[in-house]
């Protein structure tokens, strides 16, 4: 069974599509990164997937049940979510907030199970000591962690997290990434949105890039990166290196801003090792050859800019 499927999912406001015929298919146990710049339609998609916003067109299935059937899907109870910022009753403590949301489902076995897990979840997100403080007094990072705790309270089969590392410090971000990875490894499906490529590329199994409500690329993070790559090469003789590399298939080369360096763009079939070999054969001394760190960001920007062509 598929964790999340959207078919032709569309949301229009005043005839302007915010989400435009979106087809997604997230498999069980997958850690899926949903990328896009702010305003690309990520949050609208997530809200439709959870039944908060009604689509103008198309369908969503969550854990195999239609979200917009005759009644709200029971599978929401098996889904944990954080939608934009976490939100709590400021006048209640962190623990009381978790209790309220545990009970809000309407009692019964499901509520009891959640209530029994509160201490465990508070410990997991590192809020045991602050559990009895009012949320009013929490820092943004603490609220973020409580939000993740709330999403995990029902031992969900599926987690939907919208920008979960917002407001966290670098070590908090790392912790969250590690937590999500370990949840995915133990079988939980994780659907996580972000506008930062660097954030998702390290942990996700698959990444989809959304721009203007459309999916403009999808695949393993490594595969996406493969489509364009940029190298910075340090050589002893820039002139000779330029002459050597220019005729190579799939290579665009230019002198770098720093003397003694080249910037090399690689298209699909060209590789870093081919560049290196060509230079060495031509007798150019290569003292360093490094992929630029923001390569994936470039891919992302290129994809997003391509889709900005006016329709």
């Amino acid at each position, binding site marked *: 069974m598929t964790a999340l499927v959207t078919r032709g999912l569309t949301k229009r406001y005043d005839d302007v599509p915010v989400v435009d015929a979106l087809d997604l298919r997230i498999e069980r146990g997958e850690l899926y990164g949903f990328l896009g710049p702010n305003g690309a339609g990520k949050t609208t998609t997530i809200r439709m997937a959870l039944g908060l*916003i009604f689509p103008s067109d198309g369908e969503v299935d969550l854990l195999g049940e239609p979200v917009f059937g005759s009644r709200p899907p029971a599978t*929401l109870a098996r889904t944990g979510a954080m*939608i934009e910022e976490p939100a*709590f009753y*400021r006048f209640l403590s962190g623990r*009381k907030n978790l209790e309220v949301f545990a009970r809000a489902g*309407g009692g019964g076995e499901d509520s009891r199970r959640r209530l029994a897990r509160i201490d465990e979840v508070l410990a997991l997100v590192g809020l045991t000591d602050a559990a009895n403080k009012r949320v009013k007094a929490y820092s943004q990072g603490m609220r973020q962690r409580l939000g993740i705790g*709330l999403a995990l309270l029902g031992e969900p089969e599926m987690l939907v997290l919208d920008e979960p590392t917002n407001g966290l410090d670098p070590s908090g971000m790392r912790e969250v990434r590690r937590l999500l990875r370990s949840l995915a490894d133990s079988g939980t499906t994780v659907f996580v949105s972000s506008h930062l490529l660097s954030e998702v590329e390290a942990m996700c199994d698959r990444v989809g890039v959304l721009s203007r409500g459309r999916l403009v690329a999808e695949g393993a993070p490594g595969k996406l990166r493969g489509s364009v790559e940029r190298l910075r090469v340090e050589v002893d003789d820039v002139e000779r290196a330029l002459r050597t590399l220019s005729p190579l298939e799939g290579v665009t080369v230019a002198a770098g801003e720093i003397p003694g360096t080249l910037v090399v763009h690689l298209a699909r079939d060209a590789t870093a090792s081919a560049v290196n070999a060509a230079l060495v054969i031509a007798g150019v001394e290569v003292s360093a050859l490094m992929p630029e760190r923001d390569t994936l960001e470039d891919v992302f920007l290129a994809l997003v800019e391509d889709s900005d062509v006016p329709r």
Partner: protein
Amino acid sequence: MFRVELAKARRRWRTYLIAMALGGIPVLIVIAVKLSPPASTGNGDAPPFLMQIVRNGLFAPLTGLAVIQPFFLPLAAGLFAGDAIAGEAQAGTLRYLLVRPVRRTRLVLAKYASTMTLLGLLLLWVVGCGAFWGGVIFGFHPMPTLSGSTLSVASAALRILGSAGYIFLGVSGIAAIGLFISTLTDSGPGATVATVILGIASEIADNIPSLHQIHAYLPTHGWLAFTDLFRFPVEWGSMRGGLVVSAVYTVVFLAAALFAFGRKDVVA
């Protein structure tokens, strides 16, 4: 969900502030009457209805009800009902309740039930505060009616509770209107203010003679009819009319709230 709502109200300062403010009103009345000189009847300053309290603690709860009704009661209804959905939207907790999941119909009904429960408790609280302090200071005595006859203490107490019950049913219409407004906006204070203004506008319109054709249809028109319980024999006509009007407002606006919220895009 209903119990969760009450538990939340129990932990809010707001609830106690309103209770203290409204409970203080009958107490203030008792103190004011106690301190005023044991006036010769008809000294012009105090309304005669208020002055009768001097001789009877039973008038304190009744006067308390009469005083809170025109302004404080719509205010309380606006606060509880107006804030019900809009306040959750503003805090962002609405989306987390809905994905928990809580069905939208259920959320609206639970909010209405908890609003009415709080208003009912508030009315009982005002009656209780008035009866307690009125009783302590003045004691309970048989009560003269507006028709000139006299009611026993037990019978008068029953009629006071009946008045509270009538006022409770009367405010249900305004509460339903407040809940409907609450589903339309993401601003809790906005919905509260709108509800209070509507309630007060209805009372003002009710006092403009040239609008008399619409008077009978105003949600607050029948509110003062509870004084008919203190006639002999009891005059039921206006009260029946008041109950019908508030029942219609309740049903119409509760249905509108369910309809509006049922298909609303929750973007807050």
